[in-house]
């Protein structure tokens, strides 16, 4: 399949050492759309045949709007959910069918930082026991060994170890997210899924946490799958970016290339709609009309055609091919080559 070849080529160019590879991964959900028990369930295609490879030590940014399937893709990639079909290779091992003890061991290597720091921290536990929990469970640490390691982790994320007894509620939003990050790095994982990890924070705090994530990546040799809807923050942290629309990655490129030379009409619209804090910039606004269709009932051919300013007849009939714009830049669009390259 051309789709697979295209994106794998892009991955190989970097240094050919992928830590995580997704091949034709889909995640479908059966949902009941009617209260009639005889009405058959419909299939919601949250992720639909995505191939992607993430290099060791890189930050791969995944952007898209709500409902694009980016969070589902992230959850499947770190095996919080099982894929409906496709293969996932982590560190040379196929993990899509793993379960039980095997999966437990894999998950030590892949940790998650969630969007809502308050909702993802147990309100009844102290900060110290939250950070120490994975160490107790997986490494059996107790007593002063545990306390010392927790204090070390707190220092490494910029928290004062004397606050170990505090409850999450007593901390500010930024501090809570630091706790979530300390917990995620406690077991020295290889890969971290950051799902909107800075989106809920105030702008000034967002910058602090972003800097911390970048710093940890370098210090600990981490790889990030960084999911966000805010484009500026993704541009700041990611080396490569994938743009998702209705369950597909429609464009992948090196960050600078994607922002300077977007090829997919959706990527262009997304960039044009993203507000910049400069009133003198009056860019050409590509205002997309309408809203994304429901993933329960996808348009024929290209999924973006119902909102695309360039859509033609062919877009309704044939799914777009994966076009290799450069060795590191692929796009799924019928007009990729003719649209101003």
């Amino acid at each position, binding site marked *: 399949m051309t789709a697979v070849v295209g994106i794998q080529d892009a991955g190989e160019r970097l240094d050919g050492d992928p830590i995580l590879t997704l091949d034709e991964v889909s995640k479908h959900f059966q949902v009941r759309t009617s209260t009639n028990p005889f009405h058959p369930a419909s299939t919601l295609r949250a992720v639909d045949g995505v191939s992607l490879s993430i290099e060791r030590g890189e930050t791969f940014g995944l952007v898209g709007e709500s409902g694009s399937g980016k969070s589902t893709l992230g959850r499947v990639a770190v095996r919080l959910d099982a894929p409906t079909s496709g293969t996932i290779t982590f560190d040379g091992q196929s993990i899509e069918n793993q379960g039980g003890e095997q999966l437990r061991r894999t998950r030590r290597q892949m940790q998650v930082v969630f969007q809502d720091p308050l909702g993802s921290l147990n309100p009844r536990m102290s900060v110290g026991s939250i950070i120490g929990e994975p160490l107790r469970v997986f490494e059996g640490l107790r007593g002063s060994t545990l306390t010392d390691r927790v204090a070390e982790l707190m220092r490494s994320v910029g928290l004062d170890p004397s606050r170990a007894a505090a409850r999450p509620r007593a901390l500010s939003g930024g501090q809570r997210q630091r706790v979530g990050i300390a917990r995620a790095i406690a077991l020295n994982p290889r890969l971290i899924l950051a799902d909107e990890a800075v989106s809920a924070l105030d*702008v000034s705090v967002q*910058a602090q946490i972003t800097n911390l994530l970048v710093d940890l990546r370098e210090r600990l040799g981490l790889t990030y799958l960084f999911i966000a*809807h805010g*484009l*500026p*923050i993704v541009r700041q942290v990611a080396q490569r970016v994938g743009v998702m629309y209705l369950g597909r990655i429609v464009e992948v490129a090196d960050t600078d290339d994607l*922002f300077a030379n977007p090829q997919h009409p959706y990527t262009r619209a997304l960039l044009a709609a*993203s507000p910049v804090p400069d009133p003198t910039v009056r860019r050409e606004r590509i*205002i997309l009309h309408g*809203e994304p269709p429901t993933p329960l009932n996808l348009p024929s051919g290209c999924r973006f055609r119902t909102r695309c300013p360039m859509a033609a007849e062919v877009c309704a009939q044939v799914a777009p091919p994966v076009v290799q714009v450069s060795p590191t830049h692929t796009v799924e669009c019928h007009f990729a080559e003719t649209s101003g390259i």
Partner: protein
Amino acid sequence: MPARDHLLRLDGVSVELDNGHRDIPLVRDATLDVRKGEIVCLVGESGSGKSVTARTVMGLTQLDRRMKVGGTALFDDVDLFSLDAERMRRMRGRDLAMVFQEPLSSLDPVFTVESQLREGLRRRERLSPKAETARLSEALQEVGIHDCERVLRSYPHALSGGMCQRVMIAMALLARPRLLLADEPTTALDVTIQAQILELIDRLRHEEDMSVLLVTHDMGVAAEVADRVVVMYAGRVVEDADPQKVFAAPAHPYTGGLLACIPPMVGARPVVLPAIGGSVPDPSSLPGGCAFHPRCVNALPRCTTEDPPLEPEAGGTVACWNPLTREAAPAPELVHNGGSA
């Protein structure tokens, strides 16, 4: 500027929450004007008092008996704060209308869009059912909803967030208000939908000669639509100026810091984002002097004891003893600030 140009004039507005032990200041001495046909953006981080200010103009804060409101809010020479509940109720939905951040939770889930819109319209004028329906369709078309019949028949849960927000705006505009208070109207929406809603608000204020007080945390949104930008921090207005001035040469160190920590969308990416240290103070324990001084890079010894008044500075107004637009004070006098969240 002649006084008749002003539609809304807040003077020394304060809001305090009596928590049973003492009064917690949420808004402190807020002073700002909204002229006719002007979009004023009220920006700041969480806890800055920007939403409380807008809700107080609408008379909503006052519904909570624990809230104490001071100062004056002149709307066309009538002090909104002196009106009794009945007169205020009549102002709302006629002269004043408000749009909230969460469209889904601001609409009533058990009524159809049609019955909710009708209720709003009936408060303003009595029309025949037929004329009413025509007005409703017209209102929906105005906000870019074309399949009016389906939307009118729908319950809010069946509509997308962008659609609900359009319905909210249509409802607010049915009253042909002279002032629209919009509290983070696009924060819950995707950027492509945000672009549509912002354009809609901008178009309507030209067509209807409506004034808008738009509350947002996003400096990008402010740059996009504002005729004037008012920055709040810890309950106070710290800067008030034209967008050209605010974004090119911010006077308050807080405004400067907020702008600096937004990652750029073009050009080189900074290795480390210039974050503002620390976090927004809790209103119940504000630092003495200028509330921003513990996080300020420009702080002078004076800032720790005296709260600066809002004074004219380089074409706008600013509340700062050592604004960025003035020549920097000699280094030894600066209070050293660092620290993290």
